[in-house]
């Protein structure tokens, strides 16, 4: 099912599901840092998967990314992407010190980011599961810190053999001191996208 082939109502439903998922993720993050975080109203687009490497700026811009392969009744992938600055802000939210090392966070700090992002991914999926009645699990989460074009392309190649459309969510988690801008790509494979739309009565 291609992004271009979705009806306005189906697009709205996907945007709604993703917005609720992002809201749950913000709540999960608030609990983790033990203070209230607001979430900026997310911008949500459904894009053809080939466009993924081009929507975040230059292909050579460095980003940090956490990728989760999805298994269960919703298969595909989910990717969180953050600029080096946003990666630092996430670490600061968690009380870690960010060294602004050009090579990116060291193994310990990368592990911290993966844990947080993994938590956000699981909350997003739990919300999607609750709304659709479809079980969705993150099979494994992996971390990379490098050129955006190369990372997004790698994801396109892993899920792109099957998936056609990606839900592209941009939002920010805000506390008193900072706004942490994050981007997320939710890439269900075509059968899973069909199943999601069936469950919300829009197939």
């Amino acid at each position, binding site marked *: 099912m291609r992004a271009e082939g979705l009806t306005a109502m189906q697009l709205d439903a996907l945007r709604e599901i993703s917005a609720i998922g992002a809201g749950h993720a913000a709540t999960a993050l608030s609990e983790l840092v033990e203070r209230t975080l607001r979430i900026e109203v997310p911008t949500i687009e459904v894009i053809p998967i080939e466009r993924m490497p081009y929507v975040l700026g230059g292909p050579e811009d*460095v980003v940090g990314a956490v990728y989760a392969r999805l298994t269960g009744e919703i298969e595909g992938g989910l990717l969180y992407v953050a600029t080096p600055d946003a990666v630092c802000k996430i670490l600061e939210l968690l009380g870690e010190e960010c060294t602004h090392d050009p090579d990116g966070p060291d193994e310990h700090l990368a592990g911290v980011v993966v844990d947080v992002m993994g938590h956000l991914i699981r909350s997003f999926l739990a919300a999607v599961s609750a709304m659709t009645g479809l079980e969705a699990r993150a099979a494994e989460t992996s971390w990379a810190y490098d050129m955006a074009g*190369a990372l997004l392309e790698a994801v396109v190649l892993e899920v792109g053999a099957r998936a056609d459309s990606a839900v592209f969510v941009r939002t920010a988690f805000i506390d008193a001191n900072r706004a942490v801008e994050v981007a997320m790509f939710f890439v269900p494979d075509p059968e899973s996208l069909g199943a999601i739309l069936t469950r919300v009565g829009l197939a």
Partner: protein
Amino acid sequence: MNSPAHMKARLEVDPLVVEVAVGGVCVASHPQSLTTLALGSCVGVALWDEGRGCGAMAHVMLPCASQTTPDRESARFASWAVPELVRMLVESGSDPRSLCAKIAGGAAMFRSNSTTTPVGQRNVAEVRHQLEVAGIPLCAEDTGGGHARTIELHLDSGVLSVRSYRLGLRHL
């Protein structure tokens, strides 16, 4: 209109550097150079004809088209792009026996527990196979690892510059 930022942006686009798109192929000759950006698991294939100071480059994404792929003749696939590079250079007047190849990319950007061979490795294997079939020697390569690469082929010297955040600049 002509703000400094505006001028700077215009000057930074060097008309002598030909950018090969993801899944694309291009031919150029000196004083031009060929570049392709942010190779991850993709492989950049550069062919150089020393005598003519010209060359060709591809940014391949996958080894081969599957049985069901509608556009099998696409430079996204190594199986099609490598013979196409040779064909384009021969058409422009090169002798295939005078060509030499340099390749870079084929990294694994995300560590994975998957047991299947990573796409980067399969890309490199297919590019090597296609070069062998075409009888083009592989003069240098910088493949594998876990980092992204941007490459530029200088058509006067045949040097392939490989740039990465992790390892800086290398010349092949």
